[in-house]
C-alpha cells in the first residue's frame, strides 16, 4: 500500500480503537482495579494514592472525589444476585449481614451516579435509622412504590445503581472475593 493512504489508515485505526477502548472502559466505570463480589463492584484502591489510572479517569469523568480509604469503602451494585441488571421499575430486597463497620449507608443512584429521586424523597438509609428484624439483620426493599418496612424509593426509571458505603471499617483493607456481603434479590417486576 502506498505511504500516505497507509499512514491515514494507521491513524484512523489508532484513533478509533484507542479512544473507543477508553470510552468503553471509563464510560462503564470498570477498569483494572475493580473486581466483583456477587452483585457488588468494588475498587479497593480507588481511595488511596495507589488508585489505578482507570479509577482516576472514572472519577475525573464523573466529577466526583473517591471515598478516601481511611474514611470508608464504597461498593456499587449494578446487578442483582442472579446477574440481571438493576432496573428502577422492579422491586429488590437488600438483606444483611453487612460487614462490621462503625456506620454504613445504602443509597440509590443513576447510571452516572446522579440522584434518581426528587428532592424530598429518601435517597438512602443509614445503619442507625434502618429498622432491623429479630435476627438483627437489616432488610431494605428498593421499589418504585411505597412498601412496608424499610422502603428505599428506586425512582421508577430504567437504570439503577445501589451504593453501599462502609465507614471506619477494617474491611476496607481486607476485602477480597470471599468477603460475605449483603444479598440483593429481585422480588418482582411489573
Amino acid at each position: 500500500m502506498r505511504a500516505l493512504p497507509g499512514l491515514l489508515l494507521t491513524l484512523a485505526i489508532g484513533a478509533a480503537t484507542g479512544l473507543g477502548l477508553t470510552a468503553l472502559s471509563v464510560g462503564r466505570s470498570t477498569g483494572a482495579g475493580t473486581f466483583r463480589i456477587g452483585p457488588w463492584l468494588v475498587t479497593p484502591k480507588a481511595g488511596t494514592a495507589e488508585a489505578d489510572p482507570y479509577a482516576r479517569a472514572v472519577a475525573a469523568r464523573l466529577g466526583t472525589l473517591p471515598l478516601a480509604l481511611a474514611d470508608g469503602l464504597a461498593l456499587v451494585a449494578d446487578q442483582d444476585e442472579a446477574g440481571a441488571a438493576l432496573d428502577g421499575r422492579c422491586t429488590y430486597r437488600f438483606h444483611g449481614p453487612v460487614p462490621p463497620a462503625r456506620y454504613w449507608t445504602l443509597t440509590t443512584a443513576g447510571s452516572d451516579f446522579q440522584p434518581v429521586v426528587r428532592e424530598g424523597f429518601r435517597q438512602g438509609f443509614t445503619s442507625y435509622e434502618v429498622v432491623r428484624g429479630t435476627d438483627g439483620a437489616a432488610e431494605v426493599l428498593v421499589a418504585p412504590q411505597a412498601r412496608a418496612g424499610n422502603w428505599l424509593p428506586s425512582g421508577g426509571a430504567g437504570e439503577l445503581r445501589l451504593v453501599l458505603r462502609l465507614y471506619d471499617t477494617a474491611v476496607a483493607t481486607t476485602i477480597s472475593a470471599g468477603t460475605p456481603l449483603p444479598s440483593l434479590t429481585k422480588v418482582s417486576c411489573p
Partner: protein
Amino acid sequence: MTDLSPRRLADIGRERFARILGVLPWIVAGLLLGVAVHIVSVFALPRLAPDDARARLSEVATVNRLTTLSGRASVILPLADPAFETAVCRFDLTSGPLHVRAPVTPHYTAIALYTSTGLAFGAINDRAATRRVLDLFVVTQAQRREITTDEDETAADNLILVSPTTEGFVLIRALAVQPSLAPLVRDQLASQALCEILTPEMAPPTE
C-alpha cells in the same frame, strides 16, 4: 472476455494476497497506535477532564478558606453520600502549612485529603480525636522538615500529614444519622470547622 483459466485465477489470487499483505503492516501499526492512544488518554483524563471535581469545587470554594456545601452535596459532587454534611477547603501550601480543624460531631466525622487531580492521599476520622475537635496540619515535604516539636508536646498531639502536591482539597465530612439531624450537624460544621494557612508569624495552636 475474462480469462478464467487456472493460471489466470492463480495470478489474481496472488495479486489479492499481495495487496492484503501490503495493508497488514498499516493495520497492525494502527492497532498498536490504538493501544498507545488508549493508555495516554486514560492517564490524561484526570488532568484534562473539563467537569472534574476540581472544576466543580473551584466554582464554590475559595482557596485556603472553608466553604460548607449546603443542602445536597451530591449536587456538586456526584457520588457524595447524601447522609453526610460536607465542608470543603481548597488549599495552596506555598505560603505556609494548612491547619484544619473539624468538630467531633455526635456520630461520625472524617477529614479526607485530596490532590488537585482528585487523588486521595490521606484521611483521618474521629477515632484519632483526643478532644472535642480534630486538629490536622497539612504540610509540604519541605515544611515538614522545618516543623520541630517542643519538648513539652508529644508528636502524637499534632497530626501532621505531608501532601504530595502544593495544591489540593480537604473535605470535612460529618454523618447525620437521620435527616432530622442534618441541620444540627451542618450548623456544628459551619460554626466550629476551620481551615487556615499558618503564615510564619503564627505559631501552631497548642491548646
